[in-house]
């Protein structure tokens, strides 16, 4: 963590809980950088998370009100807090398994209701904390502890899902695109309404080592090579797009 952001962390926290090579530490940094850029007061912010590695990004690290909830239910908890006290600037930060698999119903309903929440989904394409089981975001053929011969089901396109549910701001970036990601977080925090950012975050421990990414660096390189902008994607054929991840804003919050 950059020294200039230390004021946003609880003084008693001295280390991160994340594995070497995990992208969540970068994401933690980028969220705080966006808050710093916007000069938001941590006293007015509420961070809500579910269960899983990404749920530990805010709790207990962020020096603000934090609500570490049940698996899948972060958005439901956040809905109650925000609806009762609209002054709370409320961010939900959790993982793909939490927000989309077990909690997918709350995600689409909060988007439909356009609740004034910013939801940051750290997508590592696997269940990290429980030992690397297949997720609803794992790519086809991915090797996981419950798909030893490859994942046979298609993954969700999270942005399409949330867009389809009516969210006014939807974006996808990788932690390997830090500047764009900070801008997206800043924008999402400035928009009144339901905003959603999918953040691709490498999990070398559970995903990488099962899928021939021999070191954390290899996973980062894969993300750098796979992530392309929407403009770049328009120039490619369907075949060329097969292993690419399209990043950018899919809805820019304008009415």
């Amino acid at each position, binding site marked *: 963590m950059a020294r200039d952001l230390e004021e946003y962390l*609880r003084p*008693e926290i001295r280390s991160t809980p994340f594995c070497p090579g995990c992208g969540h530490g970068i994401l933690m940094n980028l969220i705080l950088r966006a808050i710093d850029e916007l000069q938001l007061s*941590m*006293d*007015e912010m*509420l961070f*809500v998370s579910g269960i899983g590695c990404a749920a530990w990004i805010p*709790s*207990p690290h962020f*020096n*603000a*009100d*934090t*609500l*570490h*909830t*049940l698996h899948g*239910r972060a958005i*439901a*908890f*956040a*809905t*109650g*807090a*925000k*609806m*009762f*006290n609209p*002054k*709370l600037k409320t961010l939900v930060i959790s993982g793909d398994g939490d927000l989309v698999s077990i909690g997918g*119903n*709350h995600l689409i*309903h909060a988007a439909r209701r356009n609740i004034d929440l910013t939801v940051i989904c750290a997508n590592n394409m696997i269940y990290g904390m429980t030992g690397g089981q297949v997720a609803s975001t794992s790519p086809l053929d991915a090797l996981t502890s419950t798909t030893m011969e490859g994942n046979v089901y298609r993954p969700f396109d999270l942005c399409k899902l949330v867009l389809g549910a009516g969210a006014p701001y939807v974006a996808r970036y990788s932690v390997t695109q830090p500047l764009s990601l900070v801008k997206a977080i800043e924008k999402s925090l400035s928009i009144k309404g339901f905003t959603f950012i999918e953040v691709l975050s490498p999990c070398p421990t559970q995903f990488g080592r099962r899928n021939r990414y021999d070191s954390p660096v290899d996973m980062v390189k894969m993300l750098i090579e796979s992530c392309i902008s929407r403009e770049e994607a328009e120039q490619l054929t369907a075949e060329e797009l097969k292993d690419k991840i399209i990043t950018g804003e899919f809805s820019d919050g304008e009415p």
Partner: protein
Amino acid sequence: MKSEEIDSALSAGTYYFSGNEAVAEGAIAAGCRYYAGYPITPSSEIMERISLRFKDVDSVFMQMEDEIASICSVIGAVWAGAKAMTATSGPGFSLMQEGIGYAAFTETPLVIVSIQRAGPGTGQATRVGSGDLMQAKWGSHGDYQIIALSPWSVQEMYDQTIEAFNLAEQYRVPVFLMAEEAVGHLRERVDVGARVEVFNRIKKPGAPPFGTDQADGIPPMPAFGEGEKLLVTGSTHNEVGIRKTDDPGVHSRLVSRINNKILNNRKTIIQSESYGLDDAEVVVVSYGFTARSALFAMDQLRGEGKKVGLLRLKTIWPFADGIIQQIGATAKKIFVPEMNRGQIAGEIVKYATCGVIPYNQTDGEIIHPHQIMKEVRSLL
């Protein structure tokens, strides 16, 4: 005690309400400012009335996507500073159980109204039952204690809803109003007073929100947005809320305290009504709607010169162990009519020093006075 008397939400007078309508009015009177729920028979009228009435009292109503979201959003609203409630029935109550355990462990005060129908499964959605009392106590995993009340009239639906909020705030615990369908859909007169006694949660800025010096103490409770930088987690936590999931001492102290804060105060919490216990040879122990039949039956039997008494449990959990022990000293038999397979009779057996005779009916119908009279006559 942070008790205060406030003006009643309704003007003082006599009203004609269904039990479910009285619950909604009781909640508003108690200061409920957030309600989330999902439609389910036979409790939906509570949500319908709340949705209408909350507009008058500047409160937030949310119809959520399911009962899981309902209980979770209620917990979120409570930590944002609200007094909050949800209401449901059988299957919805089952769905809420994980959230209830979270609320118990994070010491989140809230009220859950369960209008019991005939289960298990989808069961008989429109019929009466009393089969969810053990679920109220044991429904979520792990060791915790809650408070559960059992109203027998529409008046008590109003009064006990207010009491449920006060107990929740006082003990920082989920409180259940375990009514039956027959009380929820009963229509009776309700007297509403001009003033209502309410308990507001204790705040002590800077004090730890999850621990006290006493092993059975109730910590003060701040809200989000008050600058306390609260750490709320359903994982094992120390007194300030930091996760301590591998510390046996922290876990043991926390689990013991959330149990003992209820159990050690049970004499203050538990309420019951006694009729003719002094010379009774047979005591009917009853609660909820069935106690109406039991009281009628007892009066009839007394008219026949039979020495019959009635103990009506207004509080189901924590259980009225003391008074059950006392009954055993004088009575010969305890008769327990229930619209379940003996959930409370089993509890009475734990403490009674005389014979306990359960009478169980699970056909979706109420237990009538003549049934109780016939059974009790055969015991004398």
